């Protein structure tokens, strides 16, 4: 690596005039680019997949399973799902894919999530690409201004994410039926839904906003023993927030894809009983 004795003129950041004169943007010798690259690739794959599925407006229901991308279904143009989350509150004027109506909430929740923020700031925006690796931008204002100041509404997306998770729980309960809507059955789909909803709840409850609302905002834990205990539990989940974010992202895509496969007749749901 070249290291000149002259600091490059008029540069900022680590190559600024007052800093030690070292030309490279970083001196890391490990594969620091691997993590942001993998993150970006993973997120990109999900974006491509979910965009296709959200706009597809088809193959999202295969009794008794409804794709989590399309639940609840808030427009009239939804596939009829018996006892399912068909709530036509928007009536008939909505002509686009009904997924778009509901996906805003989980999408917003994840977009403003403290973990995903880190992931895409690093992976997509290279701000910074990795620790002690200079970022390419000349100016930075962080989350002090519009639009990024809106990240602070994460709390309200968390509130919205809870009922969405509740509805997906309802969908999971409904999945314990067979194609004829008879209760007391279970297939591979039910199992996938079960895992998915478990991960969704774990991700939702492990959210930093949840940790704050449950107990983090208190000054004296000793005066609120129950909330303190809950805060401890949420804290333990919160330690795994990143893992849960990825696991639930994958599981929701897998659940949708499974429904897609059933709906397109690629294969039949293996039934356990």
């Amino acid at each position, binding site marked *: 690596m070249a*290291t*000149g*004795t*002259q*600091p490059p003129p008029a540069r*900022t*950041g*680590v190559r*600024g005039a*007052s*800093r*030690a*004169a*070292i030309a490279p943007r*970083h*001196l*890391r*010798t*490990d594969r620091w680019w691997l993590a942001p690259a993998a993150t970006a690739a993973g997120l990109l794959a999900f974006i491509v997949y979910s965009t296709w599925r959200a706009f597809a407006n088809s193959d999202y229901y295969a009794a008794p399973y409804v794709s989590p991308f399309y639940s609840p279904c808030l427009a009239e143009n939804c596939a009829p799902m018996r006892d399912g989350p068909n709530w036509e509150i928007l009536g008939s004027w909505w002509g686009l894919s009904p997924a778009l109506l509901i996906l805003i909430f989980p999408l917003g929740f994840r977009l403003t999530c*403290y973990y995903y*923020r*880190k992931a895409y*700031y*690093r992976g997509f925006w290279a*701000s*910074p690409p990795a*620790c*002690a*690796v*200079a*970022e390419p*931008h000349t*100016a*930075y*204002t*962080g*989350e*002090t201004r519009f639009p*990024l*100041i809106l990240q*602070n*509404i*994460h*709390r*309200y997306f968390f509130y919205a994410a809870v009922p969405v998770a509740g509805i997906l729980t309802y969908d999971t309960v409904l999945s314990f039926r067979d194609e004829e809507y008879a209760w007391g059955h279970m297939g591979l789909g039910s199992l996938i839904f079960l895992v998915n909803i478990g991960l969704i709840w774990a991700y939702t409850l492990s959210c*930093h*906003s949840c*940790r*704050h609302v449950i107990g*983090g*905002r208190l*000054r*004296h*834990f*000793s005066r609120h023993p129950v909330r*303190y205990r809950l805060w401890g539990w949420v804290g333990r989940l*919160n*330690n795994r927030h990143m893992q849960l974010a990825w696991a639930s992202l994958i599981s929701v895509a897998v659940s949708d894809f499974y429904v897609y496969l059933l709906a397109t007749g690629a294969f039949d749901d293996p039934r356990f009983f």
Partner: protein
Amino acid sequence: MSASTGTNASTGTGAGASTAYEAKFRVWRGDADGGELTDFTVEVNDGEVVLDIIHRLQATQAADLAVRWNCKAGKCGSCSAEINGRPRLMCMTRMSVFSREETITVTPLRAFPVIRDLVTDVSFNYTKAREVPSFVPPPGVAAGEYRMQQIDVDRSQEFRKCIECFLCQDTCHVVRDHEENKSSFAGPRFLMRVAELDMHPLDAAEESGLDRKKTAQDEHGLGYCNITKCCTEVCPEHIKITDNALIPLKERAVDRKYDPLVWLGNKIRRRGE
């Protein structure tokens, strides 16, 4: 010389000598006017840390090599530097983490103005320390009458483990890559200090009319933080700066400022003025 003392009796029995080898080092030498990475070949013995090697360079090859250090046990936070591009304490970086063939690059902290060799001007941090309003003792509670529960002090105690090595301040891209942000951003260490005081069970700031959550946002630049977690990654005390201090502080600020209704109301009122 006699071998009369216990400490003395142990020399010679150590497993050190047999495993000595010559390591390749590149150490940045220079000052504010410029400098360069200088190559050294230096002896390394079993169990040594990077700081030992720097000391050996001083004693044998470069007597005036400037370096800060103090306790040599990871407790004072003086010997911060960047080793192979990563901000670390030299006294806590064992040579055994590197392969023998590897060239080890040691540079001063690259976020602060360099003084000489491995020594940088860290006055930024002391300036910021002064800007955080101090602990406000509760009125009417005499010394000796303070009563606090362990669970109420746990959170702030975690932050008080900080040894002020300023590695988090060094790695934070907000100031590392953008000199111009230094005036408006306190950095992770001092935002954590705000969090510590805000979580202190007896701090009476609020009663005295000081809203620490608000000042974190308005005066210490909390919004610049985009929670990319490099501060947590480099912390030698393993303090979870982002998860336990910065994000909770952001959430506390949200309590005050980003309730959408309150926010909207404020906007309208300010427009009207």
